[in-house]
């Protein structure tokens, strides 16, 4: 698990840097794709371990808080949003959805 979390730190760090510097030049309809959000969504959807999803949301959200200006000017906004999203997704998936074609990591 520790290795996964270290990987998460490095992975999301790179993603957020790419998102806030490289991708700024490749806007689609004036918007930069939110790689961190996409990664957190994918991990939350397809990971078998809930801790894996929660930690990715925490780390990704934290990096977003650091590197992008928050909508309401509150540091921690993205962390809380992503965390809530991850938890709610997990609850919905566990209770109501089955994804038979994907093997959870």
């Amino acid at each position: 698990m520790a290795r996964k979390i270290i990987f998460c730190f490095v992975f999301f760090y790179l993603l957020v840097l790419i998102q806030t510097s490289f991708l700024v030049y490749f806007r689609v309809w004036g918007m930069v794709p939110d790689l961190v959000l996409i990664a957190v969504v994918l991990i939350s959807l397809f990971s078998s371990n809930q801790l894996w999803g929660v930690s990715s949301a925490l780390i990704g959200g934290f990096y977003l808080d650091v590197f992008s200006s928050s909508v309401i000017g509150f540091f921690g906004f993205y962390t809380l949003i992503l965390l809530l999203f991850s938890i709610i997704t997990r609850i919905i998936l566990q209770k109501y959805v089955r994804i038979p074609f994907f093997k959870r990591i």
Partner: protein
Amino acid sequence: MRMFRNLKIIVFLVLLIGVFVALNFTGFAKNIKNFFYSFSAPVQKTFWQVGKNTSDFLGGILEINTIKKELDFLRAENQELLSEIVVLKELKKENETLREGLNMELQKDFKLEIVQVIGKDISQDSLLIDKGQKEGIVKGMPVITSQKVLLGRIGEVYDDFSEVILISNKQSSFDAKISDKEVFGVVRGKGNQELYLDLIPKEKEIAKGDLVITTALGGIFPQALLVGEVKDVKKTDIEPFQTAEIEPQFDLKNLDYLFIITDF
């Protein structure tokens, strides 16, 4: 068990919110951001540069058609502007000539028509001008420069163009006199922009530098138009008359706009 788990999540969330609130209110969030920025700046700069270069490259490829169209448009516009400049330059020249003519008060003495030279046949001592029968040009009308220098007379007249026979043309001959002296003679063209004053009585004194002007005799040209300057005087005992070579006062190379005297 489930309740305990849910409680754990709620406590964790509350704690997390508390931490973030504390970070925001103490201003420590700024320190965290500063810490991350300080070591991420070089990496971000590299990403910026790479992103910019890639975007420029891809943008160039994607916009090649737009650039090509713009280039074509600019080229066409450039051509249009160049031709406009040419027209304006021509108008400027015409304006200058007219001003010069006004300064010489030509319009007081004669009824004039300004024309532009469109062709020069130097070997035949003739010019082609841009006005003809439609503008009321008639064969035989005198042609002068804005400095009141006699250039020639109208030869052939076409609908929109006319030919000017220079006074240096071999066919040309007219009465003239030496300015300020009662010395009369006939100016004849020799070709190649050369002319001479013929039939000057032998006893009359003429000198190099004397100015030759037209007279009203013969009615070909109005009087007192400058013809040229005496360059050389030839006098022999055998000949009953003396002759003088005349240097014409017009410069064919710089002739652009001329005046036709339509009435005098």
